[in-house]
């Protein structure tokens, strides 16, 4: 160990090339799956590869994608949030109750208020998990029920159709020929990728998820960062709720219900570890795309609704196996 350091330096440099490419490659394990799905889709239905259909897929997935982004951040930091799916429905619903459609100029406040509600739910989760030192799994499982319960109780279980204009805008507008939702999801993913790849705060999520004690010893304010991540997660889920509301033109009592399974599936097949500290935002994005394409192909193929669930599950398992084989390491 102590001898011959100088001759070792060049070998270190030459080894950097291929290994680096390999780590990048790990991020791309789902790309072949996506290509395969595009090819299969093209054979299944000629409509599949048209820009109109693909735009449609992206728009349908943009709300789910934001929740996946939120969950990926939380998972990388070594925590868990199941309550995000309830926030998707509850935050816009409460906003509508606070600011009815006929409130005129107040309507502009709808989006900020909705985001604040989401952030508050995230902050409360963080409070219970960090200050009370409760298990994230159990806390957010309870919060999933509590938040959805609030939604049902306050709306009387009815769908809301009379909404302020501004709440509908983001989910239905078109910017530069593409739905605004796609732009929003795209920009936020780009911000996520850059932050987690190139900024100290972003890297600190990996340090915390990998070994919280080590992160603390390195001077990272672990509690503050994790709390912030929960708050951002809640706000992203609320934003997802806004996009979904605009796309559908109303808020059903079941908005967001059941999403969390897809969210975890997308994050995990995208390479984000349930144990924390591992995975990338880009990976999570490829996970969302796989899920979206599968769903679209099933619809085009006219698979009856009753069978969709099964096909869905099987395809997720296959994607997991492919990414496991391509990624090399055992998945947690």
């Amino acid at each position, binding site marked *: 160990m102590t001898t011959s*350091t100088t001759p070792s330096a060049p070998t270190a440099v030459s080894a950097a090339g291929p290994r680096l490419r390999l780590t990048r490659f790990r991020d791309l394990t789902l790309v072949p799956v996506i290509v395969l799905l595009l090819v299969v889709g093209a054979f299944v239905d000629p409509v599949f590869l048209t820009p109109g259909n693909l735009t449609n897929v992206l728009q349908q997935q943009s709300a789910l994608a934001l929740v996946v982004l939120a969950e990926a951040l939380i998972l990388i930091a070594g925590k868990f949030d199941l309550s995000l799916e309830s926030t998707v429905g509850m935050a816009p619903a409460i906003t509508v109750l606070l600011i009815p459609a006929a409130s005129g100029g107040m309507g502009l406040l709808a989006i900020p208020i909705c985001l604040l509600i989401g952030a508050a739910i995230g902050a409360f989760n963080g409070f219970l998990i960090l200050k009370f030192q409760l298990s994230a799994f159990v806390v957010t499982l309870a919060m999933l029920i509590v938040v959805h319960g609030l939604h049902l109780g306050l709306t009387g279980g009815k769908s809301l159709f009379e909404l302020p204009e501004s709440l509908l805008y983001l989910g239905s507008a078109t910017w530069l020929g593409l739905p605004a939702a796609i732009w929003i999801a795209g920009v936020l993913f780009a911000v996520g990728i850059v932050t987690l*790849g190139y900024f100290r705060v972003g*890297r600190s999520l*990996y*340090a915390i998820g990998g*070994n919280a004690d080590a992160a603390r010893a390195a001077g990272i304010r672990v509690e503050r960062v994790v709390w912030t991540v929960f708050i951002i997660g809640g706000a992203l889920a609320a934003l997802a709720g806004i996009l979904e509301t605009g796309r559908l033109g109303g808020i059903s009592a079941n908005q967001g219900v059941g999403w969390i399974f897809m969210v975890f599936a997308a994050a995990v097949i995208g390479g984000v570890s349930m144990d924390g500290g591992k995975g990338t935002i880009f990976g999570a994005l490829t996970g969302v795309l796989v899920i979206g394409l599968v769903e679209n192909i099933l619809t085009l193929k006219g698979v009856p609704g009753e069978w969709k669930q099964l096909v869905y599950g099987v395809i997720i398992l296959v994607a997991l196996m492919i990414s496991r084989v391509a990624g090399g390491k055992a998945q947690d």
Partner: protein
Amino acid sequence: MKNHVEARNIVKRFGPTVALNGAGISIKEGDTHALVGRNGAGKSTLVSILTGLQRPDEGEVLFSGEAAPPLADRDAWRRRVACVYQKSTIIPELSVAENLFLNRQTAGGPIKWKALRARAREVLETYQVDIDADVLAGDLGVEQRQLVEIARALSFGATFIILDEPTAQLDGPAIERLFERMRALREQGVTMMFISHHLDEVYEICQSVSVFRDARHIRTAEVDDLPHDELVSAMTGEATATYTYRSRTAGTGVVLAAKGLSLTGRYEAVDLTVRSGEIVGLAGSGSSGKVGLAETLVGLRRPDKGVVSVNGTPIKDVPSALKAGLGFVPQDRHHEGFVPLLSIAENATIPIAHKLGRFGFVSPASRRARAVEMIKDLDIKTEGPDQPVGDLSGGNAQKVVLARALADDPKALVVINPTAGVDVKAKQSLLGAVEDAVERGAGAVLVSDELDDLRVCDRVLVMFHGRVVKDVPRGWSDHELVAVMEGIEQ
């Protein structure tokens, strides 16, 4: 010489427990200073106070005569004191380069990965660590990770470094390399505080030593002025005779036998017979294959070739080995030894649960009674049989693991590194318990990295690169055995 580091009258309480009670330490500039004490003496608490991770309730810490910086200013602390903690602070999912510059990848703005890797290579080169900066830290071995930690610690510019039990997980040659590095650092003027349970290491590498006991500072002395016996009695608070090894004669019955055992990459063509009433030691460096062999003897690993038999019954896995009358203490008690949340009683009686009741029912009363017996036999320091094993100190947890191994009165006993991370007194009662079992008629295999443990053995088999190269009878000298372990002599 000036004092580089000083802690005065430190008091630290955790709820009702007093971890440090008016303790202090002062370390001269350029010294390598040992901190010794039994488990629970307050060493770890002192480390976290000296590194600024915890605030003392009373007392002060001085660096080169100046008051320590405020706790929130991590960077200021890290410029003054570096620490290689007992628990690894390497993040396995990140690259070596990023681990070196954790939370200081950039002064501000985006991280420039190429420049970061270059800086990492520079640091590794400065401290002569021959490791590729781009590999994932999780892919490194224990020794390499430790080198990365040392390089990282020093790269902050600190000239005082704390090494908290750095040798606990290293094998002989790696420890030697670590000591070489420590000597080189000392020549460069670095002050060090070294914590270890191995007193011979203290005598080898340190100039001065402080002894802690029961949350207090007991004694500080130059190593040369403090004989081994006095050091031990300062630690234990009583004059202890050094452990006396009992003599005995082996019986004739073979309780554990292995014939033509081979496992690719671990060991080759090993024959072994253990008779009742004898202890056979297995010695060798970390790569000698001794642990792999021992794990095969208990059924944890399946050999490519050869057969292991316990009491004449060939075994194929752990349950069959246990059924044939084998008891064992695994290498890593935390991973394989006990279930931390379960009580002492439950942990210790797992193998005899079927004898404590009928039809799968386990009688809590008889379980408790057995556990109380075990606690007495092995002198386990505990509140009672219902205390979770996870709450016990290392030595006492290890006693529970040994109690479990002995629960069914085994005919053959395999014990792997029983005294790792265990203090002097616990060590003696662990070895004593093994000797007791052998006197009751068992035959034992004792695998250890520590020469002192191996002295209880009637003979020691030395392994080198997967082969048993020598069968050494009792009465060997350290030098003799080490020479064979390192492959210098046969």
